[in-house]
Each structure stands twice: as C-alpha cells, then as structure tokens.
C-alpha cells in the first residue's frame, strides 16, 4: 500500500531527514574534534560558517518531523476504511506489529527534536556558540533515532496488507485486556479524575512558577511535571475524558476523538498537550547549561518564555477537557 499520497509524503519526510542528518554527521564529527572558538585559523572560520548551514538545515528537518507526527496520525485515521475490523487509527496501527512502534518512534522523534531545537535556539542567541559541541553530539545521537523511525515506518507501510483482519479500538482499549493501556483504561473515574487534575495542576503550577521566578530547580521541575503531566493527561483521556466525549460508558479509544463525527475534538486536545509537553521538556533541558557565563542571562529568559508557553498549553488542554466533560450528557460519577 505504498502508493498512498500521504504515505509517500511521510516516507519522503523521514527519508530526507535521515539523509540530511547523515550528511551532517561528518561535519558534526569535525566540529566535535576541532572546534576552538578562540582560534582564528581558516578551519575554525570555515566551521563557524558551516554551523549556520547545518543549524538551518536541522531546524528545517526537525520542524518537518513535528508536522510529520500530525500527518502520521491523520493518515492512520483516514486509512481505517481500508481494513476489515478497523474503525479508527487503532485498527490501522494494529494491522501489523510495526504500527504502534512507529507511532511511538514518531512521538519520540517529536519530543527529541523539540529539545534539540530549544538547545539550538539558546546557542544561537549567545555570542560565543557555547553549546556547539553538545549540539552536535546530540545530533549524532539523534541520527540513529531518526533512522530507526524511518526503518519502522518503511516496515509498517510495506506490510500494510488490506486482507488482514485487525482489531478495533473497542477490543484494544477495553477494561479486560492485560496491557498497560488497559490498566490506564480500567482506572475508576474518580481516582483517574484526581490523578488527571493533580497532574495538570502540578504541570501548570511548576511552569507558571518557573515562568515568573526562573531558577534552575524550578526549570528541572517544569520538565519533570510536564513529562508526568503528559502521562496523566493521556491516562485521563483514556479513562474518562474520551467517555464523556463519546457519551458512552465503555468506549475508551483515544483515537476516535480525532474523527469528524466528534468534530475533530481530539486535535483540539492533543495539539496543545504536545506543544506544552515539548516546551516544558525544552525548558528543563536547557537548565543544565545555565551555568555557562555567556548563557547566564539567555537561558533564564528563553526557558521562562517556554515555561509560559507550556503553562498556556496545559491550561488550554485542561480547560478544553473540562469543558467537554461539563458539556457532555454522560453521567459517570453520581453526586
């Protein structure tokens, strides 16, 4: 099923990303070995000029990867009509063993790319490129992740056989099965509600605190609570937010909310959530470099801005889910 326009586009994006990163790798090694900001040699000058090219190139590739995640999910949802038993993206991702691993790989690429972009951003703001080596070491580490992502996607799309009967979200996100998603799904609404609002409150509070006051500890805390908030948010969507959206006490699917039948409400939830988590993680990641003299003023400023973005994203996500719950006709908890 490779001749699907969206699949060709996804493979194009993933392939080009790997090619560009692989092309940048020899340069990265050069930078790591020979970079010396105090030298005025010709090699150093050439390296400095080239860093512009490669950071632009990588920004482009990684921004494209952020968009690719959206396209991947959108496409999986749309392909579900092609498979017997599939009703939403879950069915499509379940057609073979590579579906969910590629989604997870794409998500990992998304967050890692966001962290790299955040570090790159503070580095370009400083006068003496203090993080250049670290950036390119991270780049070399990112390359295998992107290559794995490409490999998984190729495996997944090549093995998409229309004659496979897949399982739909109803069986996968049911309360009886024995998986980690089922654990999250079968959580009682009341404790899930506490976990969800607790997680969201912690993430919003930590990022707001960091946005206002700054400080390294609160920066790390922002990253930590953002990560935890992401897990709490997904658990909440699985265990009760989705139920309220479907107005059905047993349908826990986190993908059906992306469908037009539910007015694409899922995109309204997930896009702020992913942006907020990425911003929170980015704010935390740059704290390790706050001690460098040339970054002493830049890191707090940028990370405060990111933290505010994270707080806004989480706030929007929480407000939207609360609104979906209040507007729903379903009663899960009697009071």
């Amino acid at each position, binding site marked *: *099923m*490779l*001749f*699907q*326009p*969206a699949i*060709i*586009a*996804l493979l*194009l*994006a993933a392939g*080009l990303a790997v090619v*560009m990163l692989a092309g940048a790798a020899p340069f990265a090694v050069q930078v790591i070995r020979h970079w010396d900001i105090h030298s005025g040699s010709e090699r150093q000058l050439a390296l400095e*000029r080239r860093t*512009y*090219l490669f950071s*632009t*190139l990588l920004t*482009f590739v990684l921004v*494209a990867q952020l*968009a690719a995640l*959206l*396209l991947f999910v*959108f*496409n999986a949802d*749309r392909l579900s*009509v*092609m498979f*017997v038993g599939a009703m939403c993206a879950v069915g499509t991702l379940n057609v073979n063993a590579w579906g969910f691993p590629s989604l997870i790989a794409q998500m990992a690429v998304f967050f890692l790319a966001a962290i790299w972009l955040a570090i790159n951003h503070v580095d*370009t703001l400083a006068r003496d490129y203090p993080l250049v080596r670290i950036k390119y070491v991270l780049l070399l580490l990112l390359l295998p992740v992107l290559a794995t992502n490409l490999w998984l996607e190729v495996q997944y799309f090549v093995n998409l056989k*229309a004659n496979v009967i897949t399982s739909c979200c109803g069986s996968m996100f049911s309360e009886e099965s024995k998986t980690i998603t089922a654990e999250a799904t079968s959580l009682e609404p009341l404790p899930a509600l506490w976990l969800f609002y607790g997680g969201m409150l912690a993430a919003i509070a930590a990022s707001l605190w960091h946005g206002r006051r700054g400080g390294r500890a609160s920066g790390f805390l922002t990253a930590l609570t953002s990560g935890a908030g992401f897990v709490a948010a997904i658990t909440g969507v699985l265990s009760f937010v989705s139920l309220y959206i479907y107005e059905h006490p047993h349908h826990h699917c986190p993908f059906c909310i992306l469908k037009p039948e539910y007015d694409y409400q899922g995109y309204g939830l997930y896009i702020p959530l992913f942006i907020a988590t990425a911003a929170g993680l980015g704010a935390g990641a740059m704290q390790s470099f706050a001690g460098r003299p040339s970054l002493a003023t830049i890191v707090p400023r940028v990370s405060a801005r990111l933290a505010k973005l994270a707080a806004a994203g989480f706030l929007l996500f929480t407000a939207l889910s609360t609104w979906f719950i209040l507007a729903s006709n379903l009663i899960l908890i009697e009071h």
Partner: protein
Amino acid sequence: MSPWLEKQLHLIDFTLASLGRRKTKNIGLLVAYTLIVFVLASLTLFTHALRSEATFVLASSPEVILQRMVAGRHDLIPPDYIEKIGRLRGVQKKEGRLWGYYYDPVLNANYTFMARPADEVKDGYIMVGNTLARERGLAAHNTISFRSYSGKLFTFEVSAVLSPDSELLSADLVLLSENDFRKFFEYPAGHFTDIALSVANPQEVRNIAAKLSSSLPDSRPILREEVLRTYQSVFDWREGIVLTVLAGAILAFAILAWEKASGLSAEEKREIGILKAIGWETGDVIRMKSWEGLLISLTAFLLGFIAAYVHVFHLGAAVFEPVLKGWSVLYPSFTLVPTIDGLQIATLFFFTVFPYTAAVLVPIWRAAITDPDAVMRA
C-alpha cells in the same frame, strides 16, 4: 508589539521590497511553483471528489449481494435457492434480482437491462438512463426497438428518462418489467441473476455473510463495504501512480528552485554585501532569505490551490479526467461535489513546500556567508 515580532515585520517589509526589485526572476519562479501546486492539487482534489462520490453512490446499495458460482463462474440462481437461505436473523429483506447486459450495435456499447416490479414499469414500456437517452436521442413516449440475442425484434415505448441526478449509476441503464425481461433474454422461469439482502445493523453484515457461505457453499456473498474499500484503494492507487509519475516534475521543480536560489546576480550579491557591512549578521540574512522563500511558497500554494479548485469543480478537471475517472463508451456526465480535505492539503504541502525549502537551503546559506569586502571590491 514585542521586539521579536517587530523585527520579523521589518524583515518581511524589506524582503517584499527586494522581491519587487527583481520582478522577472521571481515571477518566473512563482509561475513554475504555482503550476506544480496546481497540477498536484488538481490531482488530489479530483481523486478525493471521486472517492466521496463513490461513497455517496454506494450508500443506498444493498448491504450484501449473493451470487451463485458454478465452476468458479457466476451462474443463475435456481428457483428454490431463496427458500434455501431460510430466515436469517438480521436480514430485513431478500429479493431475487434480474439483470443482464445487452450489446447495442448502434452505439457499440453495452446497456444494463434490469427488471423492475410491475407497478414501476408496465409491460411494453421501458425507462432509460440519461446518458443512453442523450446518445440515442430518446425522450419520453418515443419508441425504440432492440434485437434480442435470439434474433427477435422487441419494441418498447419509453415511459420516462431517469433523472440526471442518478446519472452516475444509471448512465447505461434500461429498466423494464419482469415479463419483458424474461421474454427478451429467454430467461429460464423462476431463475434470478443474483440475490440482494438488506441488513439493518452494519456490524452484523460479516456474520450474515459467514452464515450464507456456510449454508450455501456454492455462493459468493459480495459486501457493500468491500466494494467501497475496493473503490477507495483503486482511487488511492491511481492517485499514487500519477503522483509517482509526477515525481519527476517535482524533482525538476526542486532543481529549478535550487538554480534560481543559487544564481545570485551581481546586484543581489552587492546588496547582501552592503547589508552585512552595515551590521547585518549571517543569521539575519538567512532569516530574510527564509522569509523570501516562505512568502513565495505561500503565494504559490494559495494561487495554485485556488486554480486547481476552479479547474476541478468548475471546469471538470479536463487535464486528469482520462487517467483517473476510468473509461467507457457510455460514460455518465456528473458534476463533482466540492470537498476539501485537511489530509489532502497537508499531504500537498509536504509534496511542494517541503522539496522547495529543502532545495533552497544550501543556496540561501551560500548567499548569507558572503564576505562584504569580497563583494564590494569585485
């Protein structure tokens, strides 16, 4: 206004002015870019419209059609077959259908003859599809003769021409009464072509198909959802094939963009040199050039997409029609319902803006690292 935003606004302002200074070069690029977006957007809009048309048309067809197979070939349904199915839970209605093909030497085309109950079409009368009526010049109350496969001549009066709204389905259709149908084709009494079953609950369709094939092993149930899926994948596949063919064009366009971006004129080089001499940094030049690319991309995308929309939904997609629509002597004429789909736009964006940006990155960087003194001395 935040200083960042203000800076970007000034950059855009400057970029627009600088684009205006080199009109011919940029208009050439814009035309090529718009053209490629136009071609790709026409393709995706058209296939998407065809797909939704297929879904729309199939929505009212029976959920299951049962055919009988003999030696792997489609055969007639014998008289006691419908009774043999018995009562199946979930099946609301089952009826034997009578239809067949008739080759008309006048048009060199095949018609579909289908029997309808007597209260719809009386003996001696027929109802014809719009395309057929147009091609043979028929109107209500005209008479027409067909020579049957046994050599006998049959004359019918046209009682009505079917509504053009249903043309996609009824292009080559001739509806006649059951008696006429059996006489015309000398169809054995009590036999049917196939059986249509209506199933109320879509989730029961597969179970019913399974029951049918176990109780009647010589039968072949055809499900509506399977037909739909086949249509979807046929159109997807056609679209993908055309896209792959067009990949050459996308590549050529990327090369053109690379050429245009790297072929800096002496004047442009001077401009960048002066900018750097008065204090612009390499990063600023890159930012300005990125804005330039973005502005050209978005303009071309918007223009190309609007042109494609007009082309597909107002001009009938003349460029792609033969490849994508399929072919037949009696091809129905139908107007497509305009639909725009988010996935299509996102995919299109990946196919056009992504290669363009990838192609101009290196030339942009080359331009940005120009040394001011080297340029101004040259």
